[in-house]
C-alpha cells in the first residue's frame, strides 16, 4: 500500500508537467502577448502608449526571449514552487490564487458531499424498492437532472429563489460580509449562499451516481452470497447492510475519479454565470489578457488538486475493497 502511494505520487510529476506544458503553449498560441493586450486596453481608454515603455516591460517580464527559453525558465521555477508573477495583478501567482481558491474548493467540496450523500441513499432505496413509486419518482428526477444544462439550471434556480424570497442570492456572501474577515457569522452567511452553486454543480453528478448505485445494488442483491447470509438466520436489514450495500458502494467510490474533474469544471462555469468570487473569473480574465503565468498556474493547481483527490479515492477504494488491495497495490 505504501509503495502504491509513492508510485502514484511519483506518477503525478510527469502528469503535472505535461498538463501545464500543454496549458503554457495553448495560452501562448494566440498572436501577441500580455504587453500587447495591456497596450490595447490602455488605447481603448484613450491613453497614449509609449513604445519604449512597452519594450521595457517585455524585457522585464522576459517576454522578449524565445518561447522555449520562457518555457524552461517557467518549468524550472515551478519545480522550486515558484509559479511566477501575474502581470495583470502585479503580484505573485501563488498569492492571487491563494486569495480566491478557498471559495472554489469550498464550492467543489460542498457539491461533492451533496453528490454522494444524496445519491448513495437514493440509489440504494431505488434498488431495494425497485419499480416502486419512489423508484419511479427518483428515476424521473435523475433523468431531468442529467438532461438539463448547468447554466440553464442555474438560471432556473435563481429565478425560483428570487420569486420565492424576493432576494437575488447571487454571490457567495451578503454585502456586509463580502470583504469582512473570516468569522463564524461569515461562514454561516456563506452556508446560506453556497447551496445554490453546489446544487447546480452537483446535480448532474448526483443523477449519474444514483444510477450507478442503483444498478450496482440491483446486481449485488441477487448474488448468491445474499441468500447465503439469509440462510444463516441474519435479519434482512443486517444482511443488506453488511453485504450488498457495502459491496455495491465500492464501484461508487471509484467514480470519484471522474466526478472530481467534472465538479471542478462545473464550479468554474457556474461561478462565471453567477459571478462568484472564485478562481473562475480570475482564470477567465487571465486568458483574455494572456496573463500566461497566472493562467498556467491556475491550470497547474487545479490539476494538482484533482490528481490528489483521485489518489485519495483510489487509496480509499483499496482500503475498502480487498480484491483491489491484493491485486494492484
Amino acid at each position, binding site marked *: 500500500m505504501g509503495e502504491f502511494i509513492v508510485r502514484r505520487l511519483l506518477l503525478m510529476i510527469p502528469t503535472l508537467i505535461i498538463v501545464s506544458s500543454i496549458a503554457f503553449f495553448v495560452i501562448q498560441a494566440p498572436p501577441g502577448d500580455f504587453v500587447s493586450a495591456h497596450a490595447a486596453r490602455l488605447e481603448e481608454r484613450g491613453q497614449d502608449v509609449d513604445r519604449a515603455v512597452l519594450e521595457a516591460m517585455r524585457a522585464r517580464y522576459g517576454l522578449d526571449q524565445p518561447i522555449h527559453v520562457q518555457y524552461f525558465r517557467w518549468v524550472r521555477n515551478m519545480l522550486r514552487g515558484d509559479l511566477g508573477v501575474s502581470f495583470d495583478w502585479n503580484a505573485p501567482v501563488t498569492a492571487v490564487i491563494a486569495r480566491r481558491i478557498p471559495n472554489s474548493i469550498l464550492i467543489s467540496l460542498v457539491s461533492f458531499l451533496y453528490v454522494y450523500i444524496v445519491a448513495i441513499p437514493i440509489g440504494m432505496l431505488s434498488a431495494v424498492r425497485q419499480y416502486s413509486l419512489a423508484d419511479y419518482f427518483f428515476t424521473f428526477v435523475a433523468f431531468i437532472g442529467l438532461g438539463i444544462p448547468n447554466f440553464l439550471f442555474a438560471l432556473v434556480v435563481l429565478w425560483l429563489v428570487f420569486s420565492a424570497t424576493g432576494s437575488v442570492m447571487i454571490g457567495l456572501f451578503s454585502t456586509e460580509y463580502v470583504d469582512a474577515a473570516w468569522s463564524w457569522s461569515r461562514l454561516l452567511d456563506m452556508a446560506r449562499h453556497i447551496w445554490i452553486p453546489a446544487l447546480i454543480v452537483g446535480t448532474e453528478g448526483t443523477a449519474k451516481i444514483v444510477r450507478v448505485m442503483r444498478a450496482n445494488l440491483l446486481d449485488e*442483491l*441477487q*448474488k*448468491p*452470497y445474499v*441468500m*447465503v*447470509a*439469509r*440462510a*444463516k*438466520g*441474519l*435479519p*434482512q436489514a443486517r444482511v443488506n447492510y*453488511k*453485504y450488498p450495500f*457495502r*459491496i455495491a458502494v*465500492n464501484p461508487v467510490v471509484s467514480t470519484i475519479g471522474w466526478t472530481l474533474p467534472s465538479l471542478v469544471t462545473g464550479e468554474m462555469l457556474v461561478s462565471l454565470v453567477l459571478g462568484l468570487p472564485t478562481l473562475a473569473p480570475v482564470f477567465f480574465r487571465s486568458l483574455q489578457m494572456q496573463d500566461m503565468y497566472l493562467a498556467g498556474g491556475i491550470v497547474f493547481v487545479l490539476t494538482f488538486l484533482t490528481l490528489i483527490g483521485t489518489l485519495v479515492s483510489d487509496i480509499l477504494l483499496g482500503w*475498502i*475493497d*480487498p*480484491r483491489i488491495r*491484493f491485486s494492484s497495490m
Partner: protein
Amino acid sequence: MTDNGNVLTVRNLKTHFFSREGTLKAIDGVDFELKPGEVLGIAGESGCGKSVTAQSILRILPKHGRTVDGEVLLSRNGAAVDLLTLDEEGPEIRRIRGKEIAMIFQEPMTSFSPVHTIGNQIIESIRLHNRGLSKREARARAIDMLHRVGMPNPASTIDEYPFNLSGGMRQRAMIAMALSCGPRVLIADEPTTAVDVTIQAQVLELLKELQGQLGMAVIMITHDLGVIAELADRVLIMYLGKGVEFGTVEQIFHNPLHPYTRGLLASIPKLTRGREVIEPIQGTVPSPYDPLTGCPFNPRCAHRMAGVCDLEMPEVVEVEEGHRVACHLYPKDAQT
C-alpha cells in the same frame, strides 16, 4: 401435530415465480419425509426445481418467488412446526435458519462475500446462534470447524479472503460454515458441481464422514445418480417441479416404477458392462410456463396412454411400503 418420527416432512409444496411473463410453477407438488440421521437424495434434471425446493424449506426464496401451498413440518421435541406458517422475516424462522437447518450452496465461488474474510463470515454465523460466546471462543470454534473439514492451516486460512482460496478450499469453508452451529438437518445443494472432478470425490467423502460423526439428517441434492447410490438412504426423483417417485435407494435402483426414473437410471454410463452405453431420454423438457395438461412427463414418455396421460394429472400412489409414484401406469384403484 406429531412428527411421526420424521425430523422434516414436506407435503404438497408449491412455489411459484410471478413475473411479467406470467407465473412460473417452479415447484408444483413435492412430498417427502426425512428421518433423523438419514440421507435423502433429491435428483432430477437441471431446472426441475431442486434448489427452489431447498430455498422454500428455509423460506429464503429470491424476489418474486412465493410458496403458495403445502406444509414444511420441522419436528421439535416430538411436536411439529409448519415453517410455512412462520413470518418470513420473523425471529422464529431466523433461529431455525443456520442453527437447525443449514445449507451448503451450489456455487462456492459466489456464495461468500468477496470483501469479507471467510473467518468473518463463519464467526458471524456462530455468534448469531450462540449469544453467550465471546469473539475469541467463536473464533476458536470456527478454526476447529475448519480443521474438521480438512482445511490446511486453519488458524491462518481463517483470515483469508475467498478469492485467495481454491474452489475446493472454498467449498470446505462453506461446509464448515454450514456445520458450525450443529444443525439437525443439512441441505447440500449440489455441493460438488462447481468444483474440480478430482476434488468432487474428496468433498463427498468428507460429507459422508461428517454425517457419520455428527449424525445429522442430510438432504443431498444432485443430478448425479452415482452420488445418490453411494450416499443416500432414500431418494426423491423430481421432474418439472413435481416429485414423481420416492422410495428407499433399493426400491429406486432395483425396482424403479416411473418411466422417467427408469430413463434416468438407463442414462447412467454402464461402465461395468465393459462399454459405455448412454441411453438418453427422448425429447426435451417442456417450458414450465406452458400450461401442460396431464402428466408433465407425457410428451417424452414411451408408455404414454393417449386420452389419459395427456389429460389427467396422475395421483401419488403408494405402490409398496414407503415407495410412492405419480404415474398413470399405477392407478389408484388397483391398490388396496
